[in-house]
Every structure is written in C-alpha cells, then in structure tokens.
C-alpha cells in the first residue's frame, strides 16, 4: 500500500505530499505522523502541500486535523506551500487552520520553525 513518506531532519519531521491525496492515504498519514512524532520525540513538523492542487472538504479537514494533532503532541507545526486555489477552497469551506502556522515555501517554513526553537 502506498504511503506518504515522513522524513526526519534533526528533531524535525518533514512531510511532503507529492501525490493526489485520497481519503485512505490521508488517514494513513495521520496514523503514521502521530506515531512518528511520539517515537522520534519530534519538536517540529513541516507539512509541504505545494504539489496539492485540489482539495475537497474531507482532505481539507484532514490537513487541518493532522496539523492540530501534531500541535497537541507538542510539535510545532507549519503548513507550507499552499496553492492559491487550495487556500480559497479551504476558506470557503470554513477551514482556516486556526492556530497552525503557515508559510509560503519550505525555506520560510524552516526559518519559522528555527526561530521558534531559539
């Protein structure tokens, strides 16, 4: 079964969504990510969704929930690289990712996480 890879960089976890998200894949990611945050004792999570160019309400909620779960596990979470069309869709769906940090690209997201550690 295909999975979204979770990469470890120091105490950061890097998730890059490069394929079309479908519902089961999103559920699997949630399970994997939460497990990895605990097992690796990660302090930060960076979710890159720049390759995601369309979302439905379910995927939108999954992104929002995944970010929120990571936050509950005390890992600072940054969602980066959201496409304009995806942003508009999420706002129309009322999913504004409240409390989750966002950045334009991975570089800026890293800076945001780095700054928060100091």
């Amino acid at each position, binding site marked *: 079964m295909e999975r979204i890879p979770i990469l470890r960089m120091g105490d950061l976890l890097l998730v890059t969504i490069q394929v079309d998200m479908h519902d089961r894949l999103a559920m699997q990611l949630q399970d994997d990510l939460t497990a990895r945050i605990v097992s690796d004792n990660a302090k930060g999570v960076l979710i890159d969704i720049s390759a995601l160019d369309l979302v439905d309400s379910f995927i939108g909620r999954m992104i929002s929930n995944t970010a929120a779960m990571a936050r509950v596990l005390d890992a600072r979470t940054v969602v980066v690289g*959201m496409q*304009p069309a995806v942003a*508009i869709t999420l*706002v*129309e769906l009322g999913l504004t990712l409240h409390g989750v940090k966002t950045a*334009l*690209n991975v570089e*800026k*997201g890293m800076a945001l996480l780095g700054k928060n550690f100091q």
Partner: protein
Amino acid sequence: MSMKDYADRISQTILDQEAAIAAEWLAQLEALLVRSNAAAREQLRSHCQQFLKAFAGATRSGELENIEHRSWDEVRDLLSEISATRARSGSTPAETATFVFSLKQPLFSRLRDAFTGDADGLASASWTINTLIDKLGLFTITVFQKTKDQIIVRQQQELLELSTPVVKLWDGILALPLIGTLDSARTQVVMENILQKIVDTGAIIAIIDITGVPTVDTLVAQHLMKTIAAARLMGADCIISGIRPQIAQTIVHLGVNLEDVITKATLADAFVVALERTGATIAAKRTA
C-alpha cells in the same frame, strides 16, 4: 366581413395614406423631441419613414395579430435597431415607447375616414390596430431593456478589471488599495489576484487599504476576513489600513470582530509595521 377583409382594408388604407400618416406622425414626434437639433430630427425622420414602409409592407400579409410571424421580421429588426440606438444614446423608456405608441393617432384618424358609415368595421379595425401597436410597443421596451442590461453587464466587467491592482511596496510587502464596494464577485477576483501575487513575489505581508471603500457592513467585513484568512493560509499576514473614523464606528456598532487582524489608520502606519516585520527600517538622511 371576415378578419382577412379588415386586414386588407386596413393595409390598403395605410398604403394609400402612407405619406400623410408619416407627416402627421413625424410632426407629433418632433413636438415631443427633447433634444431638438438637426441631426436628431434627421435621424427621427429616417426612422419614421423606414418603419412606416416596413409596417405597411407587413400589414399586407394579413397577419395583424401575430408580430412573431415571418412577415413582421423586417419590422422587428428595424424596431430592435431603433430601440437599441435609443437605449445607448440615453433616451428614457417612455420616450422610446412613445415612438411606437404615437403612431396610433394618425392611424386612427385615417381609419375613421376609410370606414365612414361602418361603425362595426371601424370598431374592429381600431381594436386590431390598437392591439398590434401595443404589441410592437412592448417589443420595443423589451429590446430597450435588454440593451440596457447588456450595457450594465459590460460595465460591471470593466469595473472588475480595473479595480483590483496589487502593488509591490518593498521586498516582501504588497499593498492592495481597494476602491468601491466589495461584493462576492469582486472579493473572488481580489482574493485570486492577491494570492497569485503572494506566490509570484514571495511576500510575507500584505496591506489591504480600504480608504476607497465607501461603507463597511457585515458582508464586506466578512469578505475582507475571508481574503485575510486565505492569505494567512499561504503564509502571508495582512494589515488593514485606511480605516476612516465613521468606518471604525460602524465596525464596532455592527460587532464585527477584527481582533485577530492588525488594523492601522493610515497606509503609512501600516507600512512602518510591515517594514519592521521584514527587518527593514526607515531613517532620516543625516545632513552633515
């Protein structure tokens, strides 16, 4: 006497008296003309003559009850053209409708002469002509309205295009001066423009200046909040600037929650905050 005979007699009367009817009709229309100049009179005359010619031709077909009939094609085309011209030149609907309705009087007086001593015939003929002209009048107004609607749609599109510039003020700082009321359609365009610009320039802060927005009600505020939320999802923060005193009062009275947003009174204040965020400062040049 059958319907067809009436139609024939009416048609014959109009054909015989075409010149006289035209003269009387034109005199009436000219008396009503608001902007009386040579060009307007000339246009009116040519419209009258063309219309009467087509009208007389169409009555000859005997189809006096159905203006959708093939034989009325020329009349309808001509009326559409006249009506559209008038709509574009700014005539009122009343003026445009009068063009057709004022034909009644000259026609009725000719019919009275033609049907002397035949009261029944005159009544039927009058009724026929009356309904016919009414239908043509309604058709004129329909076209008039359609033309106006087209003009409005076109202007709306033009407004959309010219009213949503996104300008870059500094590295990483964008400004969006909004002018005019924000409705759903405009919000959509504004949102798309600013998000695309954020991607293009890699901006981390966007200033939305609402100096040119005349009123802020709950709907406009909601649209603003949506734009700000979408920008935040892309990793850019927004500042609202250009809030006039009355607008500030309205926002508080309406109970709109702007607490999560940075608001500034002027674009200059907002720019200073934006510069601080990007790590730049402005200093006066030291004169030695």
